[in-house]
């Protein structure tokens, strides 16, 4: 069901605004209405929205947390100990103090990183017996060590005539880079450097303190890196010790910032008119008394409570409230769209029809219980939203499994149960086997019958909802309204009477005219009649164009009744498909022997449960969305989203 809402306005004088906001920001469950409709419709109304100065401070605080590896806890404050300027000064001073030390660590780490790269580069030259100093101090030649991205190597072939020598070392495919060097004469140094820069060449500098052959250079570099790393460990320890001295005060500051931030957030919804200010929004009807009590300490605040739909400028939000049994199916409703406040909540319908259809299509006692168990475990331990849904549809599947007499595809396992039931009731009770020829056709017809009943129910629900919303044109003349109900219902009843009771004279001119022709004419004329009810011209663009368009639309409407009804044939189809697939599993089990039989049974059942369970789940969802929701549910509502959910 959809929770009843109330439209409330909090009004006070401008000088008490801060006081109002202090109480407002700690109230949970207020869905604010946008100020725009008021500002646009009330002359002189102004908005109190302003930039939130806390945002950059939060960013700075977060940066400190990240830098220090700290997690500053939140301690909510409901009053301020200092001004925002004081808070800002404190945060900046703290950050500056910490960031100096932090920057020194970062620089040291960067240095170590670059030296590690230098080590990797020098290793490429390890076999050379030339002193590095000789290479770098060449008089006429410039030498660059570095890395090139592998994906630009192809470009090199275009520069074969350019004055440089390229020496590749080794490729690091994981990092998409090639260690290399290039040589050029000093005359072309700048040109070739630009060329390689344009190819994203990353130069690696060999530190100046490195001398001698590559072998001795490696020793010097590794020694330096080790010393630097020890230094970093010490600096980090000092920094953490320093950070802890600030931690307690930072917790306090963070709480105050959050409180301030909420105040600025709330100001977006404040409208001023003269020296009066107000906040308008929605709360749940059952919360009205608690809401009034919350603001009772401030007598200057006036609270006006009205019907949720009393002001056409605001669309009331929707909060769905369902019991434990149907609640998990709410995810399918959310997937389609939030029902509008005046609509019906289709969750209960989904819960019933989804479980029913899934159970029929996937009826197997053993597999149903297994699905239910898996669903329960997924919901309990993995917190998956689909878990509780699986539990419910699994139980439905198990129930229908009892009707079909199937347990993991085995049709004899439950025979003792039927024998016991037969003796209990004094009559033979046998399961329905879908694959029996006498059953198959009846099964298919029954599923179409269930489908027709569901469609009819949807039309009834839609008609009631439209009457409730005073949308009389839709309620009376729509294909999903009273006209559609008469047309579709009469044809169904007629066919039923003919098939079950052999009554042949249902479709006569006396019944066809009022129950088929008249509803069709009304459906055809729905749009003009809708305009007529709203005192508009019935055919604003002429009758000719309307007739052609309306004729084809009517054709489509009639066709959709047929196709939507036949769409439920898939329900019967999947009953047969399930029985067929399990027949294959049973055949495979019979072909195997010993442990092979168990393996075939386990794998076969897992395969059928995984594949067919998924397909049936999707097919039922398709039936829900296309054949049911599209008839009675528009999903154009907005979600009840309180501005402050927790303190």
């Amino acid at each position, binding site marked *: 069901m959809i929770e009843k809402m109330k439209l409330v306005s909090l009004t006070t004088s401008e000088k008490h605004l801060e006081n109002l906001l202090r109480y407002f920001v700690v109230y949970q469950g207020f869905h604010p209405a946008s100020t725009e409709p008021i500002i646009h419709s009330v002359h002189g109304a102004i908005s109190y929205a302003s930039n939130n100065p806390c945002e950059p401070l939060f960013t700075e605080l977060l940066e400190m947390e990240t830098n220090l590896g700290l997690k500053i806890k939140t301690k909510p404050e409901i009053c301020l100990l200092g001004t925002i300027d004081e808070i800002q000064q404190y945060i900046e001073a703290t950050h500056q103090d910490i960031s100096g030390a932090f920057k020194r660590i970062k620089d040291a780490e960067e240095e170590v990183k670059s030296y590690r790269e230098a080590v990797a580069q020098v290793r490429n030259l390890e076999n050379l017996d030339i002193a590095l100093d000789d290479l770098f101090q060449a008089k006429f030649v410039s030498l660059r060590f570095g890395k090139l*991205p592998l*994906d630009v190597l*192809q*470009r090199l*072939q*275009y*520069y074969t005539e350019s004055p440089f020598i390229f020496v590749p070392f080794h490729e690091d*495919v*994981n*990092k*998409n*880079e090639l260690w290399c060097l290039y040589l050029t004469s000093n005359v072309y140094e700048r040109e070739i450097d*630009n*060329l390689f820069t*344009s190819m*994203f060449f*990353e130069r690696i500098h060999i530190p100046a303190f490195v001398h001698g052959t590559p072998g001795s250079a490696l020793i010097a570099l590794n020694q330096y890196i080790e010393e630097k790393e020890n230094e970093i460990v010490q600096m980090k320890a000092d920094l953490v010790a320093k950070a802890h001295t600030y931690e307690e005060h930072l917790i306090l500051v963070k709480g105050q910032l959050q409180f301030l931030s909420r105040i600025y957030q709330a100001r977006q919804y404040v409208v001023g008119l003269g020296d009066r200010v107000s906040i308008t929004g929605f709360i749940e009807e059952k919360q009205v008394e608690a809401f009034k009590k919350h603001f009772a300490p401030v007598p200057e605040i006036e609270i006006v409570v009205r019907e949720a739909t009393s002001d056409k400028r605001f669309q009331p939000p929707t909060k769905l409230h369902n019991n434990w049994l149907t609640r998990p199916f709410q995810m399918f409703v959310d997937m389609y769209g939030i029902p509008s406040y005046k609509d019906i909540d289709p969750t209960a319908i989904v819960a019933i029809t989804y479980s029913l259809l899934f159970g029929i299509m996937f009826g197997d006692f053993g597999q149903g219980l297994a699905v239910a168990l898996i669903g329960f475990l997924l919901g309990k331990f993995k917190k998956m939203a689909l878990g509780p849904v699986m539990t419910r549809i699994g139980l439905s599947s198990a129930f229908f499994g009892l009707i079909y007499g199937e347990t993991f595809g085995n049709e004899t396992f439950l025979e003792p149960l039927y024998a016991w039931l037969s003796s209990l009731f004094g009559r033979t009770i046998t399961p329905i086997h879908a694959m029996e020829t006498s059953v198959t056709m009846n099964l298919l017809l029954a599923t179409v019958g269930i489908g027709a009943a569901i469609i009819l129910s949807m039309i009834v629900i839609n008609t009631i909802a439209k009457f409730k919303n005073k949308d009389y044109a839709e309620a009376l003349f729509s294909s999903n309204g009273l006209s559609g109900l008469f047309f579709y219902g009469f044809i169904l009843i007629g066919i039923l009477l003919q098939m079950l009771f052999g009554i042949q004279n249902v479709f006569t001119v006396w019944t066809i005219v009022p129950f088929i022709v008249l509803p069709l004419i009304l459906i055809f004329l729905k749009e003009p009649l809708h305009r007529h009810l709203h005192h508009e011209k019935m055919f604003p663009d002429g009758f000719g164009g309307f007739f052609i368009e309306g004729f084809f639309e009517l054709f489509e409407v009639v066709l959709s009744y047929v196709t939507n009804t036949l769409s439920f044939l898939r329900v019967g189809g999947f009953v047969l498909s399930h029985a067929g697939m399990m027949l294959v599993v049973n055949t495979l089990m019979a072909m195997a022997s010993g442990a092979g039989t168990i393996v075939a049974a386990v794998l076969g059942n897992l395969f059928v449960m995984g594949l067919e369970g998924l397909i049936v789940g999707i097919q039922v969802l398709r039936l829900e969305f296309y054949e049911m929701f599209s008839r009675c549910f528009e999903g154009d509502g907005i979600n009840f989203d309180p501005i402050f959910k927790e303190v």
Partner: protein
Amino acid sequence: MSFVGNALVAKIRSMYSECLQSEDYNELLRSRSIYDVAVFLKKHPEYKDILATVSEASLNRSRLEGLIRRNRFNHMLKLMQFVTLKDDSFYRLCLIRMEHDTILAVIRGFISPDEYDVVEQIPYYLDRYSSMNFLALTKATDFKTLVAALEGTRYAKMLKPYSAIKNQDIRYYEFEALFETDYYQYAFAKIKENYRGKLRKDLEDAFKARIEMENMIKVYRLKKYYGVKNEEIKSILIPTSRVCEKKLDEIIAVKDPAEIYQKIVSIGIGTDVGDKGQVYLEYYGDHMRYLIARKFMYFSTQSPKVFQAYAFFSELEVQNLTHIIEGIRYQISEDEIRSMLVF
């Protein structure tokens, strides 16, 4: 439609689902540096493969833009190689566009300063899939050598009449128009060759709508930046059967380029897309194409239409990302960058 076509449609839709969505753009618009953009894209399913081995810290603007363009090329190629269809020639359209861009980049080299590196401007990874000799192309220094480098391709015949033109006499926009005409001629020829009935009409209409938009942008640019005379502008525009000459003349006759947008809407050859069209005419053209492509992507079951829609969306995505990256680089406000994006 054939099963192969259905498979291609499914593949395209699945790839489209990975394209950047409005919430991604909103997130990207909040980026403060190229690093932020790179970090975001690296986590995004569409770019995570191409950026997986690239360190976001070492990425600069041009490298990131290059990788984004390369990613689009890889995706288009993946689709072209996904199935073999009898209308393959139509799907090669995006490669034709890249070939044109390559030749135009070479021509730009003729009129650019010495520092211009043509290799940097061309998609050299295309050479495996093109009949053009890229190596020879990059060595061309004037039209004569360019025509020689293009020997054996249909472009040699197209550019032969210009062989004698000297570099200082090149009017670049003429060649832009020449290749644009060639592109559309190729597109219409392939549509005519491969498709019939409503599919042909829809595809032709989509291309005509695109030509019309590009014509409008051309009028705007030629008037605003080059001061070209009305008669010359008209000779450069590509005619379509949908906009009558009188209406075209009316638009060309508009004196203030800033008023072209109102003119387009007032004479009824375009739809009003609100403030953004007013502010930025290119946005208007892209927005119109976006609406057509979205219709194809969501409602069509015919692979050529869906493919065209994907080609456009991916091109638009590259363009949007480029705007964001350039905007961040030149410290343009978030609102101004947003006004240039279409999503």
